[in-house]
């Protein structure tokens, strides 16, 4: 690691914002699981760092009304057993190894915004909000907007907001190894039995997670919403439509060292069908919690 580094270690969010205002664009350091390897390989120069670890308020996670709020410094381990957010918990459990889950954070995943990031894919399916805070206060962006625009150099991600689940959710991935590696393809499925719709996002296949809108509409129209069951032929068609959405996505990934593109779209369809089998098996409303 070359270059002279400085590190500031604010103890509160307001101190962090002042520190960032004094050196905009400084590297925010959360768990370091992405940043430290990047500094080591020289992919990023070592400069000013602001460590967020001491800011206790950023680690909080909670539920209020219809919303779940997750602080930016919550780790995957903090989320892996969270019963209020089963899809988020499944996603957290699929990331890395225990050592990575103990340190990697939500804010770090959004800061890196890797097209293969597991958390990002789930957040897209959950239609999450991202709260960013800077000198003029905080603002909330939809996850799509955040991925397009990111945050300003004097801002940091402070929280993620999710609607309280109104039905089953799952996250499935295929990687070189099941965990401990970024996905070749992944599928997040969120069922909303109250509004009678599903949202499905596919990760690892393009520069951003891909929403399969036509496939989602197909489920909304063909599911039996009194039971939450999807007939088998509709589930099959859902998989096909998801694979199609991947093939036609803008900046879809080509063949690479991980997989040929054709494998990715095929795998996305298979994962989507499996996800539907899990979430739309007709669990007699047991999972359909009203908000």
């Amino acid at each position, binding site marked *: *690691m070359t*270059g*002279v*580094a*400085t*590190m500031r*270690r604010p103890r509160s969010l307001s101190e962090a914002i002042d520190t960032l205002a004094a050196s905009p664009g400084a590297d925010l*350091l959360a*768990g*370091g*699981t992405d940043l*430290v*390897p990047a*500094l*080591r390989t020289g992919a990023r120069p*070592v400069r000013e*760092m602001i*460590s967020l*670890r001491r800011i206790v308020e950023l680690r909080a996670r909670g539920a209020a009304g219809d919303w779940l709020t997750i602080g930016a410094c919550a780790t995957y*381990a903090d989320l892996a057993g969270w019963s209020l957010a089963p899809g988020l918990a499944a996603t957290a459990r699929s990331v*890395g*190894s*225990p*050592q*990575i889950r*103990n*340190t990697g954070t939500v804010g770090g995943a959004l800061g890196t915004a890797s097209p293969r990031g597991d958390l990002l894919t789930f957040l897209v399916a959950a239609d999450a909000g991202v709260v960013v805070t800077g000198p003029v206060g905080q603002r909330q962006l939809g996850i799509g907007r955040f991925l397009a625009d990111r945050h300003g150099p004097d801002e940091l991600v402070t929280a993620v907001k999710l609607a309280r689940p109104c039905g089953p959710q799952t996250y499935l991935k295929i990687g070189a*190894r099941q*965990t*401990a590696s970024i996905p070749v393809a992944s599928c997040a499925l969120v069922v909303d039995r109250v509004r009678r719709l599903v949202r499905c996002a596919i990760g690892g296949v393009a520069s951003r997670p891909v929403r399969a809108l036509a496939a989602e509409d197909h489920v909304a129209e063909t599911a039996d919403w009194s039971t939450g069951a999807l007939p088998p032929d509709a589930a099959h068609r859902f998989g096909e439509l998801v694979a199609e959405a991947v093939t036609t996505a803008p900046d879809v990934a080509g063949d690479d060292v991980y997989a040929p593109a054709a494998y990715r779209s095929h795998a996305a369809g298979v994962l989507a069908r499996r996800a539907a089998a899990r979430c739309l098996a007709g669990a007699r409303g047991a999972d359909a919690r009203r908000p």
Partner: protein
Amino acid sequence: MTEIAIKITVNGRPQEAVVEPRLTLADFLRENCRLTGTHLACEHGVCGACTVLVDGAAVRSCLMFAVQAADREVTTVEGIAAPDGTLSPVQAAFRDCHGLQCGFCTPGFIMSLTALLRDNPDPTDEDIRVGLSGNLCRCTGYQGILAAARQAAPGPAEA
């Protein structure tokens, strides 16, 4: 001056130092504390050889800066045997079950497994495999490690 004064409790002993922010916890343990039981292989977070416990949680010491461990408790492989040198149950099981050959990966496995069995005293084989998925071994083929984990597991908690 960009150096930072830190105090870290390592294996129960307070260690004070003035360090550069870019010094990793692994280098701090090996160079400043002369605790060379923590091994470094990939230095990319992949292999797990450098696993230590920070406030009880297994982490990669190659991915953490020493300053981030300031005011926290770090346990390394040197810190888990009894003061008289009696091996911990996990260490003893690795010896009994041929859980090591060259031994390079062993400190990382011992620390990961120590944390795993503390949180889950009666793991299934699947729990063990998943729990150790972040540690790589080039020698043993993992079967001895699995056997060691089974032997070291305290078993179901008494009701």
